[in-house]
Structure formats: structure tokens, C-alpha cells
């Protein structure tokens, strides 16, 4: 950091945190007005941990669990979409509210514009099918493969689910193994079990997850 300052200057080198918050908020507003905010993000507390949510001007583009490492996720968005990224909670108010309603068991469908630009080809086709699986229902990896017209691409369906850029909202947790086992989940198996329990009418309590 600063290594050349004179001790006399210490009083003015002290951070003015209140001013920084105010100026940062003004910067976000000015950036939005000038259309310079390519990716807005915020975090949302949930029963399955803190979720990072990010949106472009096209819509929600990323939902990330803590175990994905939020700093790492933002770095990825910077490289894949644009480095013009700022924490801008207001652009994600709708997303945050719908997630809160979902986790309270009050919302069965997300009504949000979605930006699928982070998924390509077959993976994108799988995600397009996932949004058609209703709340409280599950399909097997094989059923999803068949539904996308590639019945033998069962493992590729697993990969598409594992790399789903918008877990929870694009419900890859509703895809389970044919033998009834859970399979994998980007948010961890406890989170997958918790979401399926929630959708089966058993709200996620504090004790559900031993985190």
C-alpha cells in the first residue's frame, strides 16, 4: 500500500469510509445512467447459504453458491462478459425478492428475464428443458437426455447440470438419478436435498442443513 508517506500526513491518509460509500453509490447510479454497468451483482442470504446473483442488461446471468467462491465467480464474469462489474443491489431487487419468496415456500415459479449467454450448445438446450420441470417434480438424467433428443447423452446432461450458471432459478436440483439417488449438485448434496424437501412441502428449517 502506501509506503512513502510522512507520519505527519496520517490524519488525511485515514480512510473516509462514509464518503467512499456515498461516492460508490453515486458511481453506480451514474454508470447505470451512462449504460456503463455491464454486470450488476449483489448477494442474497438464503437457507442454503449466501447466494451471489448477477445480471446483465438482458437479465439474470449467474447465481452462485458460496462453495463456488464468489470472488472467483466475479473474476470469471469479468473475463467472460465484461470487467465493467459493480455491486448494484437495486438492479437485482426483483431477483432477491423472488428468491426470498421461493425459500419461504410462497413462490413456485421465477418470473425473471434470464440471460443464458454463459451456456452454449447442448448445455444450453438442457437448461432450456430444465425450466420446464415443474416445482415439486423431478426427472432423471436419462429422461432429460431423452427430452432433448439425445437419449444417450446422459452424462452430458449431468455435466450441463453441474455447470448450470443459474442454479435454484434454473432448477437443475430437480434432476436426480434413475435409481432414486440424488446425483450431484453444484451447491452440494445437502442443498439439493433441502431444495427438494422445500418443494415437497417441508420448509427449510435452521436445522435442515448442518453447515
Amino acid at each position, binding site marked *: 500500500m502506501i509506503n*512513502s508517506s510522512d*507520519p*505527519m500526513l496520517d490524519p488525511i491518509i485515514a480512510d*473516509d469510509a462514509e464518503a467512499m460509500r456515498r*461516492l460508490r453509490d453515486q458511481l453506480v447510479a451514474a454508470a447505470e445512467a451512462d449504460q456503463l454497468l455491464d454486470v450488476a451483482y449483489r448477494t442474497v442470504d438464503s437457507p442454503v447459504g449466501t447466494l451471489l446473483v448477477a445480471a446483465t442488461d438482458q437479465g439474470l446471468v449467474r447465481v452462485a453458491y458460496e462453495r463456488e467462491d464468489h470472488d472467483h465467480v466475479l*473474476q470469471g464474469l*469479468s473475463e467472460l462478459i465484461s470487467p465493467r462489474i459493480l*455491486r448494484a443491489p437495486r438492479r437485482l431487487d426483483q431477483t432477491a425478492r423472488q428468491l426470498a419468496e421461493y425459500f419461504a415456500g410462497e413462490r413456485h415459479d421465477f418470473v425473471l428475464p434470464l440471460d443464458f449467454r454463459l451456456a452454449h450448445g447442448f448445455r444450453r438446450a438442457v437448461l432450456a428443458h430444465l425450466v420446464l420441470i415443474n416445482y415439486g417434480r423431478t426427472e432423471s438424467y436419462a429422461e432429460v437426455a431423452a427430452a432433448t433428443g439425445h437419449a444417450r447423452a446422459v452424462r452430458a446432461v449431468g455435466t450441463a447440470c453441474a455447470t448450470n450458471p443459474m442454479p435454484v432459478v434454473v432448477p437443475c436440483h430437480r434432476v436426480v438419478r434413475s435409481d432414486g439417488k440424488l446425483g450431484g449438485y453444484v451447491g452440494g448434496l445437502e442443498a439439493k436435498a433441502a431444495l427438494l424437501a422445500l418443494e415437497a412441502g417441508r420448509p427449510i428449517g435452521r436445522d435442515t442443513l448442518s453447515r
Partner: protein
Amino acid sequence: MLRAIVYKIDDNERPFEEIVAEHGPTVLRVCRAVLARPDADDAWSETFLAALRAYPGLADGANIEAWLVTIAHHKAIDIVRAQSRRATPVADVAQTRSATDALETSDDGLWAALRALPTKQRQAVAYHHVAGMSYAEVAALVGGSTDAARRAAHDGIRALRSRYHNSQSSTPQKKESRS
């Protein structure tokens, strides 16, 4: 065939949010060292909005903080010029600031003393001691030689010490040095 692909995270591929968090406070100190509030805050806002606009095209490996301070330097000059066009022309930023200085609180003595320095000294102290730029970077920004930048910073600190401590003689000087 595979050529050697060296993958590294260039500073300018980092999310701009991190750039604001990391360099915002330093740039604010620089702005306040050369301008009084609220002009300093305006200069900060204009600096970061211009930086956000140019950020994706910034050259790999650029020194982000020096780049930001350079933008802030030019924004500060623009603000002073705009004011001097509106008001009676004056040579020095500090001379236009006495009215707003009176409105400030807390460590204003030191801020005001800093802004009261002659332009070259004020810039050298702000950019070297507050922003942490090297004397060579300061010289490249404000013109003149590296030695001249070093002398201006030394003279500025000496002047500041005599003026500020004369007005605050009861305040003991902090002795600890920062790492």
C-alpha cells in the same frame, strides 16, 4: 500444436468493483489534497466514471493506480479551469478555496495547509506521499525532472510541517512510521 499459453489474470480483467474498493480511497485522498470539498468529491466521481468507460481497453499490465491518479489530475485541472472561467482568473487552486475551506470540519487544518502549498509542491506531496507514486511517475505526470519532483515533495513537506505545526503547536507529532 500447442504453443505455450501463459495464462495470468491481468489487472484490467479484474471486476471494476475491486478496482474501486482497492484504489478508491487513495484517489479520494489525492482529490482532496488538490481540491476542496465538494469539488474533490466531484473530481473523484468524474475520475471513476471516465475510468469505468475506458477500463476494458486499458493496456495489459498497466499500473492501475497511476492511471487513476493521472485521470484525477486532469479532472482536477478541468474543474479549476471551469471555475476560473466563471470567476476572476486566479493562478492557484488554493486561492480560490478559502470560502469552502471554512465549511470543512475535522482535519481541515492539514488539508487546508496542503492545498495552500504552491502548485508543484502540492501536487508532488499529493501524488508521491498520498498516492504512493514514484518521483519518476510524478515527474511524468506534472512535467519536469524526477529530481525536481523529489525536491518539490521535500520542500512541500517542510513547508507543511512548519505551517501546520505552528498552527497546531499543542498537537504532539506522531512518531511511528508506517510499514
